[in-house]
């Protein structure tokens, strides 16, 4: 039963894949092919490409990923409560309030430590 409900989604994703394949193949099959040393260089506004791409980059991106993980998991916990919170009443609300305040402390800590600054 579940499978039938989700089958159209698979079909739609398949349709997206078919579209992208047509687009890719159309370019490969119909477009011209003229290779050249300079053309194959990565584009950097006309300057010769210098250095490697796989360099280190800002640790901020890892920090953002970490904060994202914390808050995304938080939301996952909140979904069941949001749908059923009328039945859980004030007791459920208090529990979620404690949970959220703890996480807000986490946010405040990250904020104070400068994890949210992008200078």
């Amino acid at each position, binding site marked *: 039963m579940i499978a039938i409900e989700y089958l159209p989604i698979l079909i739609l994703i398949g349709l997206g894949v078919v579209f*992208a394949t047509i687009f890719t193949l159309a370019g490969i099959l119909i*477009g011209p092919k003229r*290779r050249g040393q300079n053309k194959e260089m990565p584009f950097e506004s006309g300057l010769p490409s210098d250095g490697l*791409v796989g360099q280190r980059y800002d640790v901020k991106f890892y920090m953002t990923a970490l904060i994202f993980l914390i808050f*995304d998991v938080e939301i996952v916990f909140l979904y069941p409560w*949001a749908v059923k919170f*009328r039945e859980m009443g004030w007791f459920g*609300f208090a529990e979620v309030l404690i949970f959220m305040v703890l996480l807000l402390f986490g*946010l405040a800590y990250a904020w104070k430590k400068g994890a949210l600054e*992008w200078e």
Partner: protein
Amino acid sequence: MNEIINIAINILLDPFIQTILKIVVIIFMFVMPLATVLTLMERKWSAMIQDRVGPNRANLPFADNFRGRGALHIAADALKSIFKEDFIPRGADRFLFTIAPYFGFAAALSVFAIVPFAAPIGDFTFQITDVKPGLLYIFAITSLGVYGSVLAGASSNSKFALLGGTRASAQMLSYEVFIGISLLGIFMVYESTQISVIVDGQNTYWFGNLIPKWGIFTQPVAFVLFFVAMIAETKRAPFDAPEGESEIVAGYFLEYSGMRFGAFMLAEYIAIVGVSVLMVTLFLGGYHIPWLHLWESAPQALVTILQILKFTLLSVFFCWLQLQIRWTIPKFRFDQTMALGWKKMLPVAMANVLVTAIIILLAN
């Protein structure tokens, strides 16, 4: 003759055939035309805002140089990008480079799987499928879209593309959180994550028949937060630091050319349509027309047509609104984008959830 009609009716009654038909109609008669027209609309509208004429040169030489006020540019753009050279820069990861556009496309298209276009008639729904998780499915799908930008940026062997890809990953991940939290209020008001339940919940009224309980009235803060977060998720101006035309040229899809570039562009416009239909479905009553139930003798067919019309018009309005926002609001720097999200939207969204909970619990 009657037998043939009977067979045809039986085929049409088959749920699987119906699903296929719905997909064909919704994708090929609503989403794709709207997305392709938007590519031209964007250029025309920006031209109007900037006091230019905009694209108007494409013409049909054999038909008296017919130009159609630039409408032919839709076809001209498509033909042009097909006949352009498709190339992959040296040192790029060819496999990842090839599959990156697939993610954006599949993610953008599959949003439409759960959007209802009109009220169901009997067993027949105007919705491709009504999965129980509903919006949770949308969250899962929008997360998939991140892979497209990140893989494109990382596989191109270009520094600009890598910068764009990392920015895209940080921005899209962050704004996913705000999308999730802002919609918590909607889940609380309508007590479900299933789209059909949320849409039907918006068909009730406050004060007798005075104000419809649309998402925009029950959750005005969530309306703004969700719209902003969704625009950031499509990476369009004012949140276009991952593409950053003035600094990193085109960001994560910089090295894409020809039709593969076209795939990224079309996926972006499909995503715009996706944002619009979600806004209408969640915050503007979906297909429900307010106060129409007062007209009790309304013929079913007319009601359905009006509902589809209302849904389409409002969707087009939101598409236009996104174009308007893109061309009127100056872009944010990347640090401003992130600060707006984590320092302003997150606390506001969480406060919105708590206030909603308190109000509803007090009202009970």
